[in-house]
């Protein structure tokens, strides 16, 4: 499903976020990327989701070499990947329904089908009935779940989540972890970054550890 081969990522200014990273994530597998802040977790996830391109090496997602894809093809690949952003990236001038419907609108879904899918996604994350709520009226945990609803509304083959429990209290974090576990159980490939040990234990998945942009070790919990 995802194959990183000797991947390096350098940002303008010389910051080397990743170097020589190689590993694979199988179809339907759930993998947690761990490591301290600044280890390169977010960069790794963005490369996996086709949001950024590697400076060296190759990232192959669903058989497609991300580095070789044109901008349009890369955008279309991103439609098949649900991304849960660390900072949520919700639109605060749109209500919950409109935020979740955004990927369907981009994909050109008909209105009635989009409405059905949005309600199903909101139901899945426990926000059904809050369709008209503006993001500012939602708690941090609800905003996180709204972001997850937007990531799954397109029924992606792969979910990528950057610190999905980072800003949540223990109860909310548990609920979110259980949500990802449920997606994994129905065959969705999940790649998430976290440094929350409790979540990692609860997930019980393979870990890929990063330290200073390089692979530290790989272990199966």
């Amino acid at each position: 499903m995802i194959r990183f081969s000797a991947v390096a990522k350098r940002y303008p200014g010389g910051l080397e976020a990743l170097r020589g990273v190689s590993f694979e994530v199988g179809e339907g597998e759930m993998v947690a990327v761990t490591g301290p802040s600044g280890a390169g977790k977010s960069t790794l996830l963005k490369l996996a989701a086709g949001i950024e391109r590697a400076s060296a090496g190759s990232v192959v997602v669903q058989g497609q070499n991300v580095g070789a894809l044109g901008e349009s093809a890369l955008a279309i690949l991103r439609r098949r990947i649900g991304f849960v952003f660390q900072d949520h990236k919700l639109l605060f001038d749109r209500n919950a329904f409109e935020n979740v419907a955004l990927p369907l609108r981009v994909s050109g879904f008909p209105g009635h089908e989009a409405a059905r899918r949005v309600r199903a996604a909101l139901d899945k994350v426990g926000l059904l009935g809050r369709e008209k709520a503006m993001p500012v009226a939602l708690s941090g945990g609800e905003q996180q779940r709204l972001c997850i609803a937007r990531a799954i509304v397109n029924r992606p083959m792969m979910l990528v989540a950057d610190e999905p429990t980072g800003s949540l209290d223990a109860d909310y974090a548990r609920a979110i972890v259980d949500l990802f576990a449920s997606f994994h159980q129905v065959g969705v490939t999940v790649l998430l970054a976290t440094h929350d040990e409790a979540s990692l234990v609860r997930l019980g998945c393979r870990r890929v550890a990063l330290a200073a942009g390089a692979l530290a070790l790989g272990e199966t919990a």
Partner: protein
Amino acid sequence: MRRALRLHLHALSDALRRTAAQPLASLFSILVLGAAIALPVVAAMVLDSAIATGAGFDMEPHVSVYLTLDATTDDAKRVEQALRAQPDVAAVSFVPRAQALAELQSRTHLAELLAALDRNPLPDAFTVRLRTSDAARVEAARSQWSRLPKVDQVVADFEWSRRLAQWARLGERILLAIALLLAAAMAFIVAHLIRLQVLTRREEIEVSQLIGATAADVRRPFLYHGAIQGLLASAVALALALAFGAWVTHQLSVLTPNYAAELKVVFPGPIERVIVVGIALILGLLGAWAGVSSQLRRFAADR
């Protein structure tokens, strides 16, 4: 196919919603664009009207030779032979005084006055078409013919109409230059308006791109917005031009009733109107394309 159609419908409804969401700002920008388009349209109307007025006059180089009132048929024949002997003459046509009077009665509002006269005041005349418009040669011929017996007056008065034609050609070139300048101004205005809209929607655009929107997806609603602005602006421009034309027509009929038949305003026809709408639509699209593309490049550079 249906997906593509849905995307276009979404983009169109989005553009219409955003136009309606800020009615005052939209109205103001459309009026500004409409005024910019109206200027060359009105200028074209003025030029077309001037050309149409001038078309009522003969532009070919010719000389009118008027005989004295007591000239006989034999006198006229001798003058005609003298005229035809001149090598620069292309054609000579005789206008009998009775025909001249009849034409004057039919073409002017002086019929009653002329009917009241006890005799025809107009002389027999010749209209001489020349092969040359060289002023010196025309003047030499005019001078020679004015000395012929029974010739009262020789008038070479086509020069002004030739100048009118030259002015019309100059006017067309100036009009084209003005139209090009205003077209560029319109495209710049639309580009600026769209650029501002893109800036206010930057967050939405960036999130959309993160979740799979292509540059074409992002560009589409803005292109529709530019096209809508162009279409509405062209409607405003045509309405302004037609209103101006109607006002001028009314003023002419009030101020110069005797010349109403000669001085007329030429309104844009159906084809000209379609051309105005089409050009405004294309300019709106081009402006929107330039505005959104420059901003998308800037967003990409900032990432």
